[in-house]
């Protein structure tokens, strides 16, 4: 019976990420300010979709296809090196 009556905030629709499926455009993408970045990797640690990878010289960058634009990396960055920029 419990499955017939949705309690509280049980989601009746599937996740909202369908529009942001692989290859589609996310809302906003993180951008790194390389002068502020200390290459600690906290953005890489907290990315739920493993979209952030290490690139040249130990800096980090986002894989455009996997990013959903949630903004956790911007929120968690110790030095405010990340800004979420609308994709053109």
């Amino acid at each position: 019976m419990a499955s017939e009556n949705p309690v509280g905030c049980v989601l009746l629709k599937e996740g909202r990420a369908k529009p942001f499926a692989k290859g589609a455009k996310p809302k906003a993408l993180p951008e790194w300010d390389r002068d502020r970045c200390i290459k600690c990797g906290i953005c890489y640690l907290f990315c739920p979709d493993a979209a952030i990878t290490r690139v040249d010289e130990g800096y980090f960058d986002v894989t455009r296809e996997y990013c959903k634009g949630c903004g956790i990396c911007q929120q968690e960055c110790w030095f405010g090196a990340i800004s979420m920029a609308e994709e053109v």
Partner: protein
Amino acid sequence: MTMDRYSIYAPLTLGKREFCIPDANEACPGCGAALALRHVYKALGLPEELKAKWRFPEKSKDGRGALLSLNKGRSGDGYPIEVLIDNEADLSLASLFQKSEPGTKVAEGYAYVATACSSYPFDLIEKCKRAQKSKGLAFVHVLTPCPVGWGFSPDFTVKIGLWAVESRLFPLYEVAKGAYRITVNTASPRPIVQYIKAQERFKGLSESEIEKLSSNVKEVYKNLAELSQRTDEVKL
């Protein structure tokens, strides 16, 4: 074990290999469950065939969260590790503020029981590894904030998890062979009001109810602190 034992560059010590999480493409932006699973997979390194059993908690039938039952690696000794991905989808206050699962599992005689949170990835990884090492049944209860269900902005997922632990609402501890140990110390707890006001799902709570809840949380934590006197790790 906790973040403060590692230096600021700790994330670089993580394993490079990323495991494919089925259905992760359907997770909402800022999903705590996807974040927790990523680290669970990193810690355990699953064989291919087991990955298919995972479904996202939003879709589970009873709305209680998803139970991930895993065999212990390839050569395992047969005992499964149970990982409960709890996104608090049932929303009843009684179960919110007094998680019954860890206590039940201890009473059932599990060799290793632990609570973890997606905002403390190193703690989560360490506990998964200890669960893998233990000789007997193992259970890890993971709290994963859900931006859509709880009603907060997706970039706040990690902060909300931190506040849940810091306000002693969801204390992180482990029970190895019946011995309790608190793994993340919250010497000066954060007021619960901050955690509650940040979420839309608690909109209807009155002041007196919040006070009642905070005194309830204090009581539960006091009982836990009395149980967990030892500070060193029990060898598994």
